[in-house]
């Protein structure tokens, strides 16, 4: 699903590489936490997976494609096969919940009939049935993140990438989101989640990948957030 082969990434005008000689593989159907302090290279790792950056050296394979060799015009097509969720939800404030999810389908040219069918389905799945016509501003943070997850999952992607999805949420809402992501994972979707949330990582007991100053320092099958904590 994701394979890094000796990947390094150095940004222009910076001496220290953001990611340094990282090799790892994430299999289909896995649930993986990506942990590490700020500046450890988590964001760079995710950006490389999304082909928002290209590696300086090494190869990044996502969904069977070598992203370093993927031409620009093929990138949108690649991104349709994965879902992304962010800490800040990234919803459109002037569109309703249903319109926000539908927007993701409209802009990739899906027909109206298909959109009308799948949007209520996916909103039910994330537990927002009945709130289709609410505006994002009227929802709690947890509910907003559910909308974002619905949008990311509406195409039934093989891979879901989440960048600190619980970063803006209280513990109770965080648990709800984690349950949802776990449910999505059980449908066969691979989930890669970067997080700072120690409690969640310790509780879920999933594979943990830890980065420190750009180096891969730990890859543990049923890990916790950190040894020292």
């Amino acid at each position, binding site marked *: 699903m994701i394979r890094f082969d000796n990947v390094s990434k150095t940004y222009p005008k910076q001496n220290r590489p953001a990611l340094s000689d990282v090799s790892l593989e994430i299999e289909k159907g896995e649930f993986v936490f990506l942990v590490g302090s700020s500046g450890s290279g988590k964001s760079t790792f995710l950006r490389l997976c999304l*082909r928002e950056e290209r590696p300086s050296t090494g190869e990044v394979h996502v969904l069977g494609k070598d992203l370093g060799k993927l031409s*620009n*015009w093929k*990138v*949108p*097509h*690649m*991104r*349709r*096969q994965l879902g*992304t969720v962010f800490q800040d939800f*990234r919803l*459109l404030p002037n569109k309703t919940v249903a319109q926000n999810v539908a*927007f*993701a389908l*409209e*802009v*990739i*040219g899906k*027909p*109206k009939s298909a959109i009308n069918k799948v949007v209520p389905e996916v909103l039910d799945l994330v537990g927002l049935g009945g709130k289709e016509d609410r505006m994002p501003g009227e929802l709690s943070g947890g509910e907003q993140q559910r909308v974002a997850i619905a*949008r990311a999952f509406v*195409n039934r992607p093989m891979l879901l990438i989440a960048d600190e999805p619980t970063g803006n949420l209280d513990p109770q809402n965080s648990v709800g989101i984690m349950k949802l992501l776990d449910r999505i994972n059980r449908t066969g979707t691979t989930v890669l989640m970067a997080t700072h949330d120690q409690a969640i990582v310790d509780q879920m007991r999933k594979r943990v990948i830890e980065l420190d100053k750009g180096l891969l320092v730990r890859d543990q099958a049923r890990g916790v957030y950190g040894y020292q904590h």
Partner: protein
Amino acid sequence: MRAQFVLSEIGVGLRRNLTMTIAVVVSVALSLALAGASLLVRDQVNSMKGYWYDKVEVSIYFCTKADAAHSPQCVNGAATDQQIADVKTALDKMQVVQTSAFENSADAYKHWKEMNPDNPLISVLGPEAIPQSWRVKLVDPTKYDVIQSAFAGKPGVKSVEDQRKILENLFGLLNGLQTAAFVIMVLMLFVALLLIVNTVRVSAFSRRRETGIMRLVGASNFYVQMPFIAEAAFAALLGAAMASGLLLGGHFFVQNWLADRVQFIHFIGLSSVLAVIPLLVVVGMGMAAIAAFFTLRKYLKV
């Protein structure tokens, strides 16, 4: 691609940025109107050239008795019939000459009297004061020099005159106007381009949330950029429509007002104006779309 969705996006974009949109529409309208005007002036000049050059002649004037006193070419007195016949023979041999007609002093005097009935000189001058002449029509009216060099200074010839000279001044003025319109058009077009670039930039910035999400969910570059390009093209279309209105207004002003007062000019018709309009629309929209496209390449990366 769903047209309704795209159209609503364009509407939102244009309204959100209304003042800039108006600035783009007006500057595109002015530059396109000037471009159209400059094209039409060229058409007008060409049509006038065709119309007038058909009528202009080169005149070869012969000496009269009176000329002997003050024209050095005519020291031998009035031109003889033989000299006039020699010129005719030479003219007939020339390829550039289409036709030539002789005008004797009596006819020339009559014409002159008809044209200037109030001239006080009529009572003073008799027909013998007006020179005889060959009126030469050329195949190509611009080849006047050939006649000039062949006959100027020949015995009995007083002067060779080209009526085209008189028209050249008028055409020179029109060409100058055309150049001025062209220069202003280039400047206005440049201003319009800058405005379009800026409008697209502001528009892209104010909708960076939408475009960010579009990129995230895998909308194609075309789909992300299309609303902006269509927006610029639509503003340019409004500008082109305004420019067409200005040109048509100008045309009707010329037809209904100027044509009555300036009757010696044959003005170009409505069909010429209508022929220019599609060109303005295509140029305006194409220019805006291309400008938007290149602006977006910088601001909306994959």
